[in-house]
């Protein structure tokens, strides 16, 4: 069976599955980050350029909790998103909320500036070499699946992020709160007229989107080294993912995120030089054929 697979694919099976797994993990981060971007964009009508910095903050807060307060991975998984989400609430109240009446582009510029500031502060404080974060004892080690060794932590990241994405989808599509959210996305003044506190909902939505980015950051901390630039390069790829998927559909951005991660992983196997650019090429092709994105509404 495995030899047969090797003959078809033309590459050693462990290499193929290893890259597929890496692709799924990258895809998990793409999915969680583009999900947050889409939720924020839906209600606030801004593209949150700070998202990458907030992803990085999630990883750093996890590191700080461990180094300074002795709180381990599991505590960080809950506390870091709350802390970073709270900073998001402050940013929204103090700055972003002043721009809602202006051209959306100002929101992009403002959040870009905030991102630069956060990244710069962390680079001053921690340098750019990166800090290690250990995989928690419960999730270290690897399973022998017969055709490959799977590090348990990597499997955990894929499964856990899928659960988070599904939970987000359920909250937005199936709960009363989600119904308010979708209604406010369509027509905020009308929802406000029904007595819903829309400004507070906007603030909390931004906080939740930011918390999602921070959660992805905590998940990423043991895989990548924790460094101030870890978010910025990622967020540009996520922008491309968002353009490819279109921001209209929650499930769409999850599928696009994981799918593109896998495509990127496969490209690493067959044409390593192109793996950094493949998502951008796909974006160009999608724009030429379906300008609104795969799941977007024109």
């Amino acid at each position, binding site marked *: 069976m495995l030899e047969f697979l090797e003959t078809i694919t033309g590459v050693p099976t462990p290499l193929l599955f290893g890259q597929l797994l890496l692709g799924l993990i990258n895809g998990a981060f793409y999915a969680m980050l583009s999900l947050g971007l889409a939720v924020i964009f839906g209600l606030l009508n801004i593209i949150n350029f700070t998202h990458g910095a907030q992803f990085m903050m999630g990883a750093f807060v996890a590191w700080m909790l461990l180094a300074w307060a002795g709180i381990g991975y599991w505590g960080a998984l809950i506390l870091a998103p709350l802390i970073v989400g709270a900073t998001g609430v402050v940013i929204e109240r103090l700055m972003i909320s002043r721009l809602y009446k202006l051209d959306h582009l100002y929101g992009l510029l403002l959040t*870009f500036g905030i991102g630069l500031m956060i990244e710069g502060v962390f680079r001053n404080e921690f340098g750019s070499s990166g800090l290690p974060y250990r995989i928690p004892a419960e999730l270290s080690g690897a399973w022998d699946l017969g055709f490959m060794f799977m590090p348990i932590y990597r499997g955990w990241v894929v499964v856990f992020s899928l659960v988070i994405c599904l939970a987000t989808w359920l909250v937005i599509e199936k709960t009363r709160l989600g119904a308010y959210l979708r209604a406010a996305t369509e027509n905020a003044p009308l929802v406000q007229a029904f007595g819903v506190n829309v400004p507070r909902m906007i603030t909390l939505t931004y906080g939740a989107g930011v918390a999602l980015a921070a959660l992805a950051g905590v998940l990423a901390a043991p895989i990548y080294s924790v460094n101030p630039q870890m978010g910025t390069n990622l967020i540009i790829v996520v922008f491309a993912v968002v353009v490819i998927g279109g921001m209209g559909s929650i499930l769409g951005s999850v599928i696009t995120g994981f799918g593109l991660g896998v495509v990127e992983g496969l490209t690493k196997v067959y044409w390593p030089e192109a793996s950094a650019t493949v998502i951008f090429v796909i974006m160009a092709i999608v724009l030429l054929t379906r300008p609104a994105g795969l799941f977007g509404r024109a």
Partner: protein
Amino acid sequence: MASETTAGPMPTTTAEAQGLWGYSRAQFVALLILIAALIAGPFFLYPVFLMKLLCFALFACAFNLLIGYVGLLSFGHAAYFGMGGYIAGYTAKAWGFTPEVAVITGALVAGLQGWVFGWIAIRRQGIYFAMITLAMAQMVYFVCVQAPFTGGEDGIQAIPRGRLFGIIDLGPDMNMYWFVAAVFLLGFVMVHRVIHSPYGQVLKAIRENEPRATSLGYRTDDYKLVAFILSATLAGVAGGVKSLVFGIATLTDVHWSMSGEVVLMTLVGGLGTVFGPMVGAAVIVTMQNYLAEMGAWVTVIQGAIFVAVVLAFRRGLVGEIANLLKVKL
């Protein structure tokens, strides 16, 4: 601005009608001051610093052509700036092109690249346009990391300044300065001519109300694409000249942070003002010069300026001055 479009498809403000060569009286005075500063500058300030400033000023003017007059925020202009630099540097070094031919070659390649990327990006508007241009520029960055001709992490080094038209040696800083100043002035005047041509009036109409421009029979996508190509070409000129001035073309110039810097320069100077981009470029380049040893704090300060300008000074420096004096600058 809004009143202009309601007046008719091709508005001509009275100030423009009275002015000289399409410049309002205030703009003409500012232009004379600019030319005087260009001539006097190298006798008071370090010419290499001034050349760096002029390259970025031209880059910002090119960028402003899009954001200020068509309302398109390109977040990936480093791609054209950097590519212009790489191509000019490579052709000057490896193929022995004279500086003017090298810069033109770099500009043409940047323009061609702008054609392709613009053609793809104008399918979406607003925020999506910004994200697409950023993503395309990131692709260029990764290509430049790997492509053999860019020299990867090392970049192209020891690019000769060469002899202008094969005659004038640009080695001495003062000779190079006059060349850079001439290119800058040419580019600046060209942007102004474009904006004040009938074509430029259509661009402004598209910025104010694209559906209306469409309904008046203008193929808005074609207009936007031509503006994008022009802007990319000029950014390529700026990048090409910069690589000749410093004799080096590196990944810094194609990195996304360079795209962010040109946005910042234009924003600080004033979006959609004629003289804003160069003032903004002067402010940011001077700031980077003085704060160079502060490391990552420069990033923090740049971010803070972004935030401050967006929240409080959306007109920018020149825009605020023009508003105070009640003139167009």
